[in-house]
């Protein structure tokens, strides 16, 4: 199995250095196309997706995270660093199950 990256040009280039293929996505349409392409390749095990790209196609991404076994999807901050507005994992879990951890 392989990794696949969807993000801006820098992300694709950077991960390209370690032999990970990727597609550039800067608009929702591009993001959707890239995501679809990644899902079609059965050899891809983990999709690394930049968080602002994931936000463009949030419903599609969330659906895959929660229902499908493969591929795994992981969101990472982009070149500009982490958005402080973004909820942490802990907050996300609290939201999801409505209990405080």
């Amino acid at each position: 199995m392989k990794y696949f990256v969807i993000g801006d040009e820098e992300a694709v280039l950077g991960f390209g250095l370690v032999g990970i293929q990727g597609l550039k996505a800067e608009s929702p349409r591009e993001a959707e196309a890239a995501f679809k392409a990644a899902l079609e390749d059965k050899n891809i095990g983990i999709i690394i997706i930049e968080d602002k790209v994931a936000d463009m196609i949030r419903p599609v991404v969330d659906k895959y995270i929660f229902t499908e076994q493969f591929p795994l999807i992981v969101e990472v901050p982009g070149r500009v660093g982490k958005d402080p507005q973004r909820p942490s994992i802990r907050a996300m879990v609290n939201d999801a199950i409505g209990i405080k951890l």
Partner: protein
Amino acid sequence: MRNVAPTKSNMISLKNELKFAKLGHELLDQKRNILVLELLNLVEQAVDHEEKVERALAEAYRTLEYAVLDMGKLKLYQVASAINIESNLKISQRKIMGVPLPVVDTTFEDYPPYYSLMGTSFWTDNSLGEFKAVVKVMGKLAELKISIMRLAKEVKKTIKKVNALEKIAIPDLQETVKYIENRLEENERDMVILLKMTKQRLEKKRLEISNLN
């Protein structure tokens, strides 16, 4: 309360149902506790790994930027396409209380030297190393994040079930059983009175007959 005829057989079956519901509640409660514990554990690890990935990624982008500045994007693309590293991913599964969770194992197959040392910048090497480090922790992070999502969903479902049993099904059954019990007792008392009245009447009749004789 359920709408059932107040008979003994109904009461027995309802009592069995109640026992079953209580057992189910207990088991689900245990399941919930186990899941929450596991979830806590995973969240702890995930927060840790997320920080690691963020730090590594920031560093990786920083070095990449220098590499780009040094050599130009086009050249770097050329170099990148020549690099012969294969990141292999093995995804297996483990199960916690019936929830399938992924386990990720990343290995690299690389065949250095990747590119000519002539005309490539020191930052390229640096950036390559950094990105490799990122990918190494990334696999683990993906595993943890997905596990957390799935576990959280399962916990939510379990909590719903527990609450439904605790707040609705069990009280409902208890109430019904109690109602039937009351009705049966009432019937019994009625019967006793009835018997007593019949007995009195019979006695009266007998007395009359003996008087006539």
